[in-house]
């Protein structure tokens, strides 16, 4: 139970860091090249960053929850981390 919560916390924290890096890259590029695709990426990244920051805040002082709910939230959070990590790898290239 607490292990799963820790995994969800870690995943949310990693997401926040990765998205912050992506936003820096996109904002720098947008200053130089005003591509609609880059602007869309900035909006997308900013909203996802907000979502993960809220999730992290929630995980740090969670109310009592059924174990099943914790497990599924952890799985979703980790899947999101994998997705963002793949995106970050491509963008970093």
């Amino acid at each position: 139970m607490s292990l799963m919560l820790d995994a969800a916390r870690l995943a949310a924290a990693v997401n926040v860091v990765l998205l912050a890096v992506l936003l820096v890259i996109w904002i720098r590029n947008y200053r130089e090249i005003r591509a609609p695709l880059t602007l869309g990426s900035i909006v997308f990244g900013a909203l996802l960053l907000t979502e993960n920051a809220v999730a992290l805040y929630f995980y740090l002082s969670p109310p009592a929850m059924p174990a099943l709910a914790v497990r599924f939230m952890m799985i979703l959070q980790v899947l999101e981390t994998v997705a963002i990590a793949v995106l970050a790898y491509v963008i970093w290239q």
Partner: protein
Amino acid sequence: METVLWQVLAGTRGGPNRARILRAIDERPRNANRLSEDLDMAYNTIRHHLEVLEENGVVTSGGSDYGTVYLPSDRVRDHWNTVERIISQIDD
């Protein structure tokens, strides 16, 4: 192809520098060494960008030797309007 161009030239970390490389080899096809001198970028950086551009079908090369000359691919030529629009926004 248009999405690939916007992504590779404007959406990734090395995008703006890749746009400069593409502009340079459009003016005159060059090898990595000349690009490095003419654009004042590290040789390894140029090699990396050329590799990414080639993987994405944006540039083509004569081979993989040291002196290989790079030029814009036919597919990019078909979408040169897009490239011009992207490049016109970069001023250095």
